[in-house]
């Protein structure tokens, strides 16, 4: 699978493009560039300004609209570029033209791979063009940078005044001269603001202990859906305990009490993880010692389990170099199950079964609470002691947004604070629940690719971060092309990390990036039926648990939209999808396209309302999940797949999306409803709604029927009723669906839009936003 990092870089770097009329330079999204342009008019005696065009292109040559970043991430004075222009009267001496060498700053928008600067003004020539990428640590250096920039611009302005003929200093020239100083300053200030710190961790840490238990509700629902959960004994770490607990009843076998536990509780199996000790601190090094032999109590456990016919499975989460420590345990175990890839092992134990490194998404419960804005978490703080480059990296980004902790090793916060600096917030984690809670509150997780921790530690850290809703970024280390690690952003410097982190602050960029990572995680890093059976003997989950059937219900009265609806449905990547198309009209279409076996078509007379049609569709649905789709809106190809994933992660009763993005076909322009932009990836709050075009529910939960009486507001009434019933509703993303609005307002029941409500809508981009959200930057 191709990875979908949010930034890609063209094969060429920023370059001088000569002194022609057009300049073009390669871009890295999120990077800050300084443009230096000198223009001279062929006539005149006074300083003037000239308009230049600036446009961005993606790697396919398709225009990238700079407005897609939103007002908070916009750099002023770029569209159009207005550049001070020397008159012909200025001498052409070697350094004479430097006085009017304009300076402008920009940040490459998401997906942009190339920028083009054009000059169409007649009688003006470009005599200098440079696009230089900058390496500035904006949060730390912007104040000084701005001071020094201002001083340089002031000195340049003095020079400019001296160069120009005195009589040419008219009002317009004075304005342009002032612009030469003020515009780059304004731009640099705007950029600095975009890199500024957020609220920090102090508040988010205050109630972290209470938040640590938040994931348990979701796994309880998961357990309720299972039948005949196997009871197993377990010795190992807390993370694996929680993972096994998601699909079995786990008894922690204690070193002092295991005989009584085994005697008193009928166990279907014992799982022993290759960790130095048990969750509760006993069995220390009992199963793995230098030389490969076990301790006597460990040996006795194997003997007793064998005597009682209880199979013992060794779960290897350590790396191969540690395997010899467990040799005797491997020899005596009924099965050895390795978490990792066969390629990582040169000599796996005989008959070993490989499982992917995995997490149960419900354990991390993404979206169960509000994510802290601009919160960066480094969960591998111990690496700072071993790796000077990583230490310098942490120092360079250390500020109130960065929390350093350690998930794998014993850790003393004070020692890290001494190692880094006073800005570092170091926190000692109490256990898995608190780690998950921290990750749920994090926006960006900083990992190091040069960590010495084995057993796929980097991949495991990334898996947990993504499952909790955070986006991991890797500092250095080998970049692998395939798999989850290959899909992550890799950075080499603090400045680069800050560029990526700033991109993640743009809501839709973050959402798109996370959704892609989460999809990859759910495809490759969640245990499925065979894996569960390999670990605990049999799979307690229902047959379609891993890939539930999704029913798309489309109600339409427009025959012209049938083909399009079918195409949307047939493009879905989730293989187990079915379509129920309800044609709500007295005028049945003359012909229908050939339907497939998973597509049903119903015709319902017009006197029945949409609620009736939906109820009928849902009643006929075979899927455990049904989802409504509108016949004219744009849905992502991953719509059903992402829906299944988020249901599993949240265990919600109802999932919907926010209708934020609108494509107005008459204008060929997309708009965003900014007010709703902070409502994604959260439980639905009391006064919130979800878009009617995105409603979905589980048939095994007590969702209400739609009203058969209402002609309008059927969807919102349904949401209200679900709320009255206390159902758990989740507001997922906003970039999987774009609302279509026809040029003819009569074609829609809901006619509000940018024209009627300009304060609600902001221009997002030219064309259909669907193309932006679907764009794969890799």
């Amino acid at each position, binding site marked *: 699978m191709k990875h979908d990092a949010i930034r*890609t*870089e*063209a*094969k*060429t*770097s*920023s*370059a*001088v493009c000569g002194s022609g009329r057009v300049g073009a330079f*390669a871009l*890295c999204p999120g*990077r800050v560039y*300084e443009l*230096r342009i000198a223009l001279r008019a062929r006539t005149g005696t006074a300083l003037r300004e000239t308009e230049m065009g600036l446009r961005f292109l993606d790697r396919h040559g398709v225009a990238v609209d700079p407005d897609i970043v939103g007002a908070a991430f916009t750099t002023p004075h770029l569209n159009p570029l207005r550049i001070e222009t020397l008159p012909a009267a200025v001498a052409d001496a*070697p*350094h004479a033209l*430097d*006085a009017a*060498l304009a300076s402008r700053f920009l940040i490459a928008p998401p997906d942009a791979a190339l920028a083009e600067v054009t000059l169409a003004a007649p009688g003006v020539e470009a005599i*200098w063009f*440079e*696009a*230089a*990428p*900058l*390496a*500035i640590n904006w949060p730390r*250096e912007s104040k*000084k*940078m701005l001071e*020094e*920039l201002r*001083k*340089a611009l002031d*000195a*340049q302005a*003095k*020079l400019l005044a*001296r160069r120009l003929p005195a009589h040419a200093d008219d009002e317009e020239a004075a304005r342009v001269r002032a612009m030469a100083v003020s515009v780059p300053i304004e731009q640099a200030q705007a950029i600095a603001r975009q890199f500024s710190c957020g609220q920090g961790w102090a508040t988010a840490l205050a109630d972290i202990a209470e938040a640590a238990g938040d994931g348990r509700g979701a796994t309880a629902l998961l357990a309720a859906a299972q039948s005949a959960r196997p009871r197993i004994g377990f010795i190992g770490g807390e993370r694996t305990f929680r993972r096994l607990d998601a699909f079995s009843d786990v008894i922690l076998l204690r070193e002092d009490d295991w005989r009584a536990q085994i005697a008193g509780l009928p166990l279907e199996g014992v799982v022993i993880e290759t960790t130095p000790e048990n969750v509760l601190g006993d069995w220390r090094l009992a199963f793995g010692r230098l030389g490969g032999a076990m301790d006597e109590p460990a040996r006795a456990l194997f003997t007793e389990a064998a005597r009682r016919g209880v199979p013992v499975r060794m779960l290897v989460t350590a790396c191969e170099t540690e395997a010899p420590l467990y040799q005797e345990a491997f020899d005596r175990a009924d099965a050895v199950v390795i978490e990792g890839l066969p390629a990582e092992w040169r000599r796996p134990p005989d008959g070993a079964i490989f499982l992917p490194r995995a997490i149960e998404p419900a354990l991390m419960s993404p979206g169960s609470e509000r994510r802290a804005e601009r919160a960066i978490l480094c969960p591998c703080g111990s690496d700072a002691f071993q790796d000077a*480059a990583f230490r310098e990296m942490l120092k360079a980004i250390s500020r109130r947004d960065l929390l350093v902790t350690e998930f794998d090793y014993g850790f003393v916060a004070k020692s890290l604070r001494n190692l880094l600096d006073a800005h570092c917030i170091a926190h000692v984690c109490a256990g898995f629940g608190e780690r998950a809670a921290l990750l749920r509150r994090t926006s960006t997780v900083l990992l190091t690719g040069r960590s010495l921790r084995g057993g796929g530690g980097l991949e495991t850290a990334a898996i947990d971060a993504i499952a909790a809703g955070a986006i991991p970024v890797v500092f*250095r280390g080998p*970049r692998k092309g395939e798999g989850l690690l290959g899909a992550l952003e*890799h950075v*080499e*410097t603090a*400045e*680069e990390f800050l560029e990526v982190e700033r991109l993640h602050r743009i809501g839709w960029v973050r959402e798109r990036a996370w959704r892609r990572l989460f999809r990859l995680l759910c495809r490759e890093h969640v245990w499925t039926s065979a894996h569960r059976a390999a670990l605990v003997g049999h799979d307690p989950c229902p047959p379609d648990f891993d890939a539930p059937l999704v029913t798309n219900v489309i109600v339409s009265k427009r025959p012209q939209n049938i083909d399009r609806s079918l195409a949307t449905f047939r493009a879905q990547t989730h293989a187990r999808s079915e379509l129920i198309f309800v044609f709500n009209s007295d005028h049945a279409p003359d012909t229908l396209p050939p339907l497939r076996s998973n597509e049903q078509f119903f015709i319902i007379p017009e006197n029945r309302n949409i609620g009736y049609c939906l109820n009928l569709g849902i009643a006929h649905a075979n899927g455990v999940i049904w989802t409504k789709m509108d016949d004219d809106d744009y849905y992502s190809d991953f719509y059903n797949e992402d829906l299944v994933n988020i249901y599993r992660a949240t265990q919600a009763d109802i999932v919907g999306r926010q209708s934020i993005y609108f494509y107005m076909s008459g204008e060929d322009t997309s708009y965003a409803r900014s007010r709703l932009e902070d409502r994604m990836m959260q439980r639905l709050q009391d006064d919130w709604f979800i878009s009617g075009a995105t409603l979905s529910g589980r048939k095994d939960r007590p969702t209400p029927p739609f009203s058969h009486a209402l002609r309008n507001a059927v969807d919102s009434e349904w949401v209200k009723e679900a709320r009255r019933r206390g159902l758990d509703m989740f507001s997922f993303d906003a970039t999987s669906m774009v609302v279509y609005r026809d040029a003819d307002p009569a074609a829609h029941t809901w006619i509000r839009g940018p024209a009627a409500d300009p304060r609600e809508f902001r221009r997002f981009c030219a064309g259909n936003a669907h193309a932006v959200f679907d764009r794969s930057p890799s």
Partner: protein
Amino acid sequence: MIPFCEGGVAACMATYPGRFGNLKQVVASLVPQIDQLYIYVNETLDGLPDLSRWPNVTIVDARAHEGDLSATGKLFPLEFISRSFVFLVDDDFIYPPDYVARYRAIFAAFDDRCCVTTHGGVLPPRPLWYFDRCRSFDAQKALDRLHLASLAGSGTFAFHQDRFTVRFADAPREPMVDLFLSMGAFDQGLPIWCAPRPERWLRHLGGAGLWEGYRARLTHHTNAARSRDWSFDRYREIADRAVATFDARAAEGFAAGLTIDSELRRALEVGGEPSSWRRDRSAYRQRKRYFDLLLKEEGAA
């Protein structure tokens, strides 16, 4: 009589009476590591310390040859050296005992197809003036891996003559050895690597040199630097080829202990440029200095 050096390791230095006081120390640090050291002495030999105890040191009296050449004098002896490793050295550095060995290890890793320096820098795509820099790799400071530079400090510069052709006759008479060598390396498709080293590997003896004087005015260096496009894009092909050579040589065991800047590797793989090839905050300080110089020169005029 100036001896020839063929197939060996030669070092070339230029000096003048103002630096005679340090010369013995500097020479002593170098001569055990090389076959031949040529010292081009500008102005006069009066006061030159006695270096005769080192038979592999040759004094070249400027007055008997090309006259006062300033720093360019270190290029004069190239006419007497062939098929050798050439180390261009300065008279104000004490070179460490493993200086030549460390450089030779780098040459081995690139099959001699490179230039090596300790003091280097990266010019921005279009420098305003000579001191407009993206990054300087100061000779006194530590570096943990090989970094690509576009500008070499000629006092710490080395190459092999089979790979890099430099002739004294081609050097501009106005001293600009650093630029001359750096542009030559680019033109001949050779990367300039800044050598990995510990802090204060080279010891600078202090005192003002040409460099400080150049910073106080606009010189011919600026015109030369502005005549070129120094963007990373133009160096990409050279770097790409060099990294491929390094990897192949490393596989054969010729690059032990050496690592290429991971940012450079990444830039070559996926695009962009290493951060050392981007302007940092100091660019604006240098820019102000440039405009102040222009204002000062115009005021004086």
